[in-house]
Each structure stands twice: as C-alpha cells, then as structure tokens.
C-alpha cells in the first residue's frame, strides 16, 4: 500500500509551512525525509496523519484518506518524546496499543517480545520516569510499532541512543520494512539515512530542494571529494581551479571538486613531489549534499 502526496501545500495565515510537495512512498520501502529545523517536516507528518488538513493538494494512502478509521494501521514516533512519566511501562504500552485497536492478550505477548528483543525485560514494571533517556526511547519505539503498522512514521528515532542500541533499533526497522511496512524516516544523522533509505527528499523552507533515489541524487550532484595526505606542503591545492571547498585536517586536506576530472589534475600536481600517503576519490556524502542545498551548518 503506497502513500502518495500530490502537490501538498499548507499555509498558516500568511506563512507557508509546506509548499507544493509531491512524493510517493511505495510499500516495503523506507523513505528519508530530511530538512533543517522548521523546514516543515512535522507539519507534513501531521498532514499525513490527518491531524491537519492540507490547504491545497491531496494525501492518500492506498487510495484512501488517512483518518481515525484506519489509525490502527499507522504507527507514529514523534520527534518530541512523550510517555506518561508516572505510569509503568507495561500499563503504558497496553493503554497505547489498545488505542491502536489491539486486544489485551495480544498486547501482553508483544510487550514481552519487544522488551526481550531490546534486552530490557526488567523494565516492564518500572515507571517511565525511572528510565534513562535512551531506554525511554526504546519504550517509545515499541509503542509506535507494537501493532505492526502498515505505515510507520519515524521522526528522529535514534536520538539519544548509544551505538549498540542504535543497531538494535535499526534491525527492528529493517525487519518491519521487509515485512511490508512503508516507512517515512526523518533524521538529522545523514549516515543513518544513507544506510537505510533508497529514496529521499530534502526540505528547505517548506519546499523540496532535492528529491529522488539516493544514487541518482549523488550522481547528479556532480561534485566529488578528494582526500590527500602527504609528507610535503600541499597548500597550493587550496587555490587550484575547480576546487570548490577546502577542509584542513590534522594529516592533510579534504577537498571538494567540481568534477572527477579535477581530481586527476590534483594527482598530477602532487605526483613526484614527495611521499603521498593517501589519495582518495570519493562520492559526495549526503551530509555534503545537505549542507550545500540547505546552506546551514549541521551537527
């Protein structure tokens, strides 16, 4: 079941939060939805969930509008974490899952399954406020996937987690995707998006500035990265024609070049001058593309 956004626009008074956004997310696919703070991501999610009406355009999922009739097939992990601080983990999950239309017997089984999977079975009878931020995050994640949604919106799912736990949650997300869930994934951690998403969209001031498959986006970006580490002075490379960005590191230079051809000129200009310990030609990272397109410094 695919999710389709067609020319979606949302205005609050004179302010346009989302401007003519069209995306399609097929079944069994994870879609990266990126953008700086205030780019209109949360507003878009709220429109997808039916909490806000669109000012223009249409959103439909499998041909239908999303509303409270089919909310049992939707999972949502909001960016701002929220659980009842005074409630015990199991009670909390039971309550939230019942509101997603599950039966109590099934919920209890699933709660045990997920708590075991995330290696925290002992938290079932603890109050949420007694848990660390990362562990609260796991509970929140369980709350959004316990009913095996067909459409899952994850807004910053990995924030506040250590690398081991990030892997645990990532595996769970990939399993859900393989089981047929369409996932909209928003993160400020570009490496997560590069790793998990085939398609993505970068929002800037409510407009999609980059949109397409990850490979195509990288290819059409054109620019490449060159890393040079050498034992002699290579500072003349900074001013070489075709070098668009320079970052000095402890061991040498990271250069952004206009095209692959420039890299060969760099290679020529340092060949035979001394000992070159490292010379690498790289695809641009999503991070580079994001910074270039959004123009803001990030993490």
């Amino acid at each position, binding site marked *: 079941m695919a999710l389709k956004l067609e020319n979606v626009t949302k205005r*609050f*008074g004179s302010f346009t939060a989302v401007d003519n956004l069209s995306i399609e997310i097929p079944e069994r696919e994870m879609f990266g939805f990126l953008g700086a703070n205030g780019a209109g991501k949360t507003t878009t999610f*709220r429109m997808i*969930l039916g*909490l*806000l*009406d669109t000012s223009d355009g249409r959103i439909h999922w499998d041909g239908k509008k999303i509303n*409270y009739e089919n*909310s*049992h097939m*939707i999972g*949502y992990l*909001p960016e*701002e*974490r*929220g*659980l*009842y*601080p005074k*409630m015990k983990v199991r009670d909390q999950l039971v*309550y*939230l899952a*019942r*509101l*997603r*239309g599950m039966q109590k017997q099934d919920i209890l089984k699933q709660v045990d399954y997920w708590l075991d999977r995330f290696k925290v079975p002992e938290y079932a009878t603890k109050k949420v406020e007694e848990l660390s931020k990362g562990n609260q995050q796991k509970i929140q994640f369980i*709350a*959004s996937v316990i009913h095996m949604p067909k459409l899952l919106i994850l807004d910053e799912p990995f924030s506040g987690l250590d690398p081991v736990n990030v892997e645990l949650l990532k595996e769970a997300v990939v399993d859900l995707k393989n089981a047929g869930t369409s996932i909209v994934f928003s993160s400020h951690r570009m490496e997560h998006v590069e790793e998990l998403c085939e398609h993505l969209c970068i929002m800037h001031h409510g407009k999609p500035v980059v949109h397409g498959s990850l490979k195509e986006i990288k290819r059409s970006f054109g620019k490449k990265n060159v890393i040079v580490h050498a034992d002699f002075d290579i500072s003349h490379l900074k001013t070489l024609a075709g070098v668009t960005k320079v970052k000095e590191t402890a061991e040498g230079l990271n250069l952004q070049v206009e095209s692959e051809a420039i890299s060969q000129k760099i290679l020529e200009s340092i060949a035979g001058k001394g000992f070159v310990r490292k010379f690498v030609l790289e695809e641009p990272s999503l991070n580079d593309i994001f910074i270039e397109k959004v123009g803001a410094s990030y993490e």
Partner: protein
Amino acid sequence: MNKFWIILFHTYISKLKTKSFIITTLITALIVFGLANIQTIIETFDKDETKHVAVLTESDELYQAFEQTLAPMASDIVIEKMDDTEERAMEQVTAEEISGYLILKETSEGLPEGVYKAPSITDSGITSQLEQALQQLKVTIATTKAGLTSEQIDELYAPVQFSKVALEEHAKSEEELSQARGLVYVLLFVIYFAVIMYANMIAMEVATEKSSRVMEILISSVSPTKQMFGKILGIALLSLTQFAVILAVGYGSLKQRMSGMEGGFFEVFGFGDLPVSTFVYAGIFFILGYFLYATLAAFLGSLVSRIEDVQQMITPMTLLIVAAFMIAMFGLTKPESSFITITSYIPFFAPMIMFLRVGMLTLPIWEISLAIGLLVLTITLLAIFGARVYRGGVLMYGKSSSFKDIKKALQIK
C-alpha cells in the same frame, strides 16, 4: 472496545488508584463521620468538665441570692464561698484547683456588681453565664426595691407573642426555611469544592499529557474530541464514586444516630427530616456545574504547554466559581432578592444560585426548567466550541499561554 470507553475507563481507573484521591476521600469521609457524631464527641470530652469558681464576698445574703439564681442556669459551674483573701484565691487558681474567682460587691444603691478574674478569659461560657446570673439578680433586687410583686415582674419579662405566617400556599414556614438554609449551606459548599477540585483535575490531566508530549501519540490514534469527552466523563465517574462513598458514610452514621438527634446540631442545620428533593437537585446541579466547568477547564488546559502555566490559565474560571459561591452565600439570607433571581439564570452561576433558590424557596417548575435548559444549552455550545479549541490547542506549543491562543487554536485545522 470503543476507544472512547478505553479513554474513559483509563482516566477513571488510573485516577482512582492515585494516593491523593484515596486520601481526600478518606479524610472527607472521616470529617462527615465526625460531624455526624459531633455531639457524642463533644460530650466525651466535656464529661467531667465542671468548673469551680470561688466567690469572694462580704455579704452572705448576696452570695446566697447569687447561688440561687445561678444554680438553675448553669449546671456545670459550681461556686463556693470563700472567706479568705484575694491572694489565697489567686494561689488556688495557680494550683488549678479553681477556674477563676468572682469578687461580688454591693454598690451604694444596694445593687450587686462583680469582677471575674481568671488566668485567661477565653472561656466565654463561664463569664457569660456568671454575667447573666448577676444581671438577673440585679433586676430582681432592683424591682423588689421598686415595690413590684413577683407577678408583675413575670408579666414584665414575659416575651411578646409574635409569629409569622406565609400567605403563599407552598411557601416554606419560618422553621422550614431555617432548616433548608442549613442543608443548602452545606450542599453549596460541597458543590463549590467539588466543581473547583474536579475542574482543576481535568485541566491538570490535559496539561500533563500535553507537556509530557504523550498527546502527540494519543491524537494520532484517537480524535481529540473523543479524548476530551472521554476524560471529562471519566473524571465525572470518579467524582460520583467519591460522593457515593461519602454519602454512604454520612447516611450510615446518621441512620445509626437517628434516635439521639433531637435538639442538637442536626436540628440547627436542618437535618431533622432530610428533604430528598434538595439532595436530588444538589446532584443535578452539581453534575451540570461540573460539565460546564470541566469543559471550560479541558480546553483551557489544552492551550498551555507547561504544567506551571495551568493555574494562571484557569484562574479566571476559578474566580467565576468563587463569585458564584459568594453570591450564593449572600443569597442564603436573602433568597428572594431580585439580584439572586437574575443571577440564578446566568449559566455560569446557575449551578449554585439556582440550587440555592430551589432549596430555600418554592419555585414554579418552569423557572427550574428554564435555568436547567439554559445551562444545558451553554454546556452544549461550550462543548462544541471547546472541542474545536482543544483540537488545535493540543498541537500548539509555545511559551505564551494567554487567551489570544484560543484564536490561534481555532485557526489550526
């Protein structure tokens, strides 16, 4: 199960289990039990509280006359003539052998006068009884001096015959009115506290969900309107549970003491014969008042982002309830004034003031129906409006929390 019922019972059961609910219910039940048994309690404490007062006087005649006057008036005061000095009396007071001492003298006109001395004069019971007895003695002496016979004196002091008769057929008699006043007074307090407490609870509940951001998940699975009404009804159920407990305790202990109730505290407060209709109206007006203010509280609570701002936001609402209560208190003494009549139709005041009128006066049924009708209409309008504010309010986060936000919340769709 329908999601509305899930929310309703979740709210009800989770609140029922809180310590604060259990404690307030227990304390209130205890107070009700205490009030119901107040006579027994007072009697237990006062059992051997006979007060000894020494009387210093030079005239035996005066002492005897005073003793005779006092004896039928105050059974718990025992006086003793003391022929010693004042210093000796003071010693006895210090030793707590006597409560205090009275110095009786005769003025030049042959009339009695007295000074009462005690460590503290807070026990107005003793002093007023002594004063009364002395007053009576003085009158007796003065009138005897004037040459009046005791028949003439009795005639002089017999109270005038005066009684009031209401001409309206169903109007309450003076006695009934003062009884109704006591009951209405107590029930007004109950309505007042309950409405404030439960409306507050609703606002806090909504604000807690919003500030802890659980709201974001809740609204993605259940519509805000269902949530709002689920909560309001859940808390309503909670309040009814509390009342059931308190009423059961109150009724039980009253029943038990039915026989020993004449002439005491309950007669004064009009509990002698409990008028069922007053209780029924109290129930109706409490429920309506609760729904009115709970709806108001729910949407006001939906506008704040932090729990600390809740009180500030609902203060105007609380003041409205306080105002209604104040007017009702004023109305207890003048239930028929036109000010009370007019305010009893204003929906925000009606739950208390119309109840006051219903409880104290005999009203035509259309007046009651009109007030209830207006109240129900207002609740309906407020619920529709409140649900719209709530829907936008729960999505709004910001540092400001003012009434301007209502407009903003209405625009979010």
